[in-house]
């Protein structure tokens, strides 16, 4: 098995900065923007994006975290139940533009689960999707609105994102 670097800390930083500007540009109703990250890795990315967008707009943006385990569609296929974690969305999402944030977009199943769960908290005006890496191979009709890096992969490869908040370094690697 070989490991190849895809993004270093500087590349991740540049990608998030560009995505932040795209989010501001694409959402004239900036008052209604909130960020929700998918746990685990989407959560710190959501906080970073919210900070950057907040700097551009000159105010703080509400940020929440979502644990999608209860809404997974593969619970029946697993031998043991995956551990469920806490969601933390300390604001009403009704009427808001929710930017869902995740690290890697692959089959799209996590995003389907996240959209279902988000609807349990309220009725957003719209949901946008921001991902650091889009590796392709979608199984659901889901596409991202903001992408840090498009990365063509084969099904057998593995994309691993490390973030300083969790793994003490910023890095994206591909294992094959």
């Amino acid at each position, binding site marked *: 098995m070989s490991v190849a670097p895809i993004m270093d800390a500087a590349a991740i930083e540049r990608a998030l900065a560009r995505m932040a500007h795209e989010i501001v540009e694409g959402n004239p109703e900036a008052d209604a923007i909130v960020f929700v990250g998918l746990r685990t890795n989407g959560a710190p990315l959501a906080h970073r994006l919210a900070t950057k967008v907040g700097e551009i707009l000159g105010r703080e943006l509400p940020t929440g975290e979502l644990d999608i385990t*209860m*809404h997974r569609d593969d619970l029946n296929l697993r031998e043991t139940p*995956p*551990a*469920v974690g*806490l969601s933390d969305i300390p604001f009403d999402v009704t009427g808001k533009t929710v930017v869902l944030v995740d690290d890697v977009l692959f089959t799209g199943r996590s995003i389907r689960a996240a959209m279902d769960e988000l609807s349990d908290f309220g009725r957003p005006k719209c949901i946008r999707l921001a991902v650091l890496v889009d590796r392709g191979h979608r199984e659901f009709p889901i596409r991202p609105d903001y992408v840090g890096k498009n990365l063509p992969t084969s099904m057998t490869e593995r994309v691993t994102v490390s973030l300083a908040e969790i793994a003490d370094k910023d890095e994206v690697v591909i294992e094959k």
Partner: protein
Amino acid sequence: MKKTKFTWQRKDLLGIQELSADEIFHILDTAAAFKQVGERNIKKVPSLRGKTLINLFIEPSTRTRTSFELAATRLSADVVNITANASSLVKGETLKDTALNLQALHADIIVIRHGAAGAPHFLSKIVKASIINAGDGAHEHPTQALLDAFTIREKKGKIAGLNVTILGDILYSRVARSNIWLLTKLGAKVTLAGPSTLVPHVFEQLGCRVTHDMEEAIRDADVINLLRIQHERQRKTMFPSIGEYTAMFGLNKERFARTKPDAMIMHPGPINRGVEIDSDVADCSRSVILEQVTNGLAVRMAVLYLCSGGQPA
């Protein structure tokens, strides 16, 4: 919340006695996540969509059955309730045949309450469905002990090292046995108190302290868990009168005033106001009796999720 590396392997929840401390903590952590679901706009998640749960209650119960039914519904499972007099058991069918019939109907989870200790264990050996013990005789009531522990941990921040006094009818109480096993496993110091006929010294073998002195039992307690007198299980009179029991062991205002200022009052319900607990004490700010009910729902959701999430290979 920190993610536990631990993986749940059981398909049944038969009792607390066979659980490890890790398993207990895993249920409590999982319950914390499910408690949040009850606070959302839409109090329902699809985790058990397509699963069927059968509430097989051979002994009467309202709160436990309702709690399991609501827990299953909030997980999107389908629920059927069977009660003693509505079941074929009154027509002479054995428990085994009843269970096999439920299995033939593709039940995924059977929640059973039965007057005989060990009935859930017996069922778990003959059916493939997950068996959840909702109370078997005077043996175990595991989800009650788990919701009590959840409530203690939520309010006190820990369980280890706390002084927990369980007061009342210990001899006939499955709640007491499950609580003793759970609390001692997690490092609490458990004191049992009540009339000597209902709190025999043999319970010391389970690793707790037994006293028949009410004042001494409540003085240093961080948690006081009151149990109801189980008249339905007592075959002979265990104390002279209800009035005397109340006078000797009821938690009244005067005794309550002599407890620690942060001592927490618990009761698994149904409470008998004016017998084991004064109305004022039951309704005071240190009483968590209704929070126990709310937490029971979260704990039962967690248990149903863990025992049926994932097909055993």
